[in-house]
């Protein structure tokens, strides 16, 4: 008899201790369903976009260098918005848009008439619209506070030159990974299921006429967003 209260308490304590993980499993699996909206900042790293000499035809058919150029699309910070929805238990389809304003700079040197070396630049206004897939990596570990994922996708790149004088379109592709860190996770019956921070690190491949060498170039991109899931 004297031992039964302790036994009852022990059962209660056990139940309480177990309640946490059970609730967490529901929140991270169920709360992460539905529609996700996120918005935040994005940083895109600089990328070299071509070197080319200005040359004349030499008398022997050789190329005579008048001056040299080396161009770079600078790093830039912008912002992005994203909408995502699960299509399977671990795969989410996403649509996103971003804005940034990098500087296109061409370094000029080696002039045959000794013009001082300098850099000529212009600002580019860059928009992207992308579609992609996000794959959750830790679906079976619901107690985790960090929910990693990998992403892949591609889309449309629109770049406006300074003064909106010329629009150039291209393509953008990305692959990378990241993590969601929920601050609040609630059951699927709640209207607002999850709130948190999302970090994305990507390799961003851009191809457009702004790439002066006509090639596609890869640059790093890092995004930090606040997300809400309904």
């Amino acid at each position, binding site marked *: 008899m004297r031992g039964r209260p302790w036994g009852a308490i022990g059962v209660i304590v056990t139940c309480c201790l177990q309640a946490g993980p059970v609730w967490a499993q529901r929140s991270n699996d169920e709360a992460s369903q539905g529609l996700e909206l996120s918005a935040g900042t994005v940083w895109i790293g600089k990328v070299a976009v071509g070197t080319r000499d200005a040359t004349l035809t030499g008398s022997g058919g050789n190329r005579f260098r008048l001056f040299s150029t080396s161009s770079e699309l600078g790093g830039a910070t912008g912002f992005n918005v994203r909408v995502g929805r699960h299509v399977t238990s671990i795969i989410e389809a996403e649509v996103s848009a971003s804005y940034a304003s990098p500087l296109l*700079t061409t370094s000029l040197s080696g002039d045959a*008439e000794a013009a001082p070396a300098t850099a*000529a630049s212009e600002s580019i206004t860059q928009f992207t619209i992308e579609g992609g897939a996000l794959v959750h990596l830790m679906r079976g570990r619901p107690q985790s506070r960090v929910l990693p994922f990998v992403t892949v996708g591609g889309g449309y790149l629109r770049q406006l030159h300074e003064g909106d004088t010329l629009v150039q379109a291209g393509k953008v592709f990305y692959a990378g990974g990241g993590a969601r860190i929920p601050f609040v996770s609630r059951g699927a019956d709640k209207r607002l299921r999850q709130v948190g921070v999302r970090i994305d690190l990507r390799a961003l491949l851009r191809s457009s006429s702004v790439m*002066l060498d006509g090639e596609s170039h890869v640059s790093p991109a890092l995004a930090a967003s606040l997300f809400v899931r309904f």
Partner: protein
Amino acid sequence: MILRRALAGLLAAWIAWAPAPPAEAYLKIGADSGGQTVALSWKQTPVRYFVTDAGVEGVSAPDFRDAVGRAFRAWQDVSSAKVSVEFASFTEAPPLDEDNTNILGFLAHPDMECTLAATNYVVDTRSGEILEADIFFNSMFQWSVAPSGEPNRYDLETVALHEIGHLSGLGHSALGETEITPDGGRRVIASEAVMFPIAFAAGNVSARSLRADDVAGISDLYPDGAFSQTGSVSGQVLRNGQGVFGAHIVAFDPTDGSLVGNLSLDDRGRFSIAGLSPGPHVIRLEPLDDADVTSFFSEGTQVDLDFRATFFDRLVVVPRGGDSGSITLQVVGK
């Protein structure tokens, strides 16, 4: 109608050995019309031309006709320009006579020891219309029509390509580099325009094809087709707040490496470069500081030479079918 016969010995001749500037530009030939400058061009096409039925050693009259025909075709093949010409026939008449026919042929001009060839016009100076044009090739030089050229002989097709540019209304381009020779002359070491005023050495055939600067020039005169998809850069060159006349401004397209230029052509230092591909361009300017100014301007024209070559510190974006908007280029004295 005012007719003016102009033996354009300097403006329209291709000289073998003479002072010339290391600079960049295509230039349209202008005529003064009541204080306004009008560009010379043909208004009625096709332009029918005759070939003098006389050859020289190494080049028969049919060889001459064929080489000239290839040179005309190069200009006609520019997709952004409408150049229409037609070979009429051989003729006994020599070039340079004022006879209402356009004649190309050899003539001996021992007095013009530096002139390989020259173009001669009859123009309406009010409208700029070219009414007649002849081209003479100086038979005092050795000529060749060999596909790969011949040592010590000037390539007829190359020189014809240059002179036909003049016949069409183009002036000289300064897109080239020269060096001073021990005898005080000037030798071209590189150029990027058929319309550069000094020819490569005898035997060289590397200037048989038109360059971007030539294409822009002819397209600016006779725009057609894709020209409407090109754009222009305009602005003015200032030194201490004053306009600079005769500065060479060149637009470099870093996407394809093409160079197209022009000159500032009034006291306010204003210029315009047309026929440019849409996209960002590097702008560079330099003076005609070692040039024979008369290769580009009339005798006595005052050209500002006292400034340093420089780059504009902005990339200038050429819009499709429009102008960049006026830019101001500041230069400083040497």
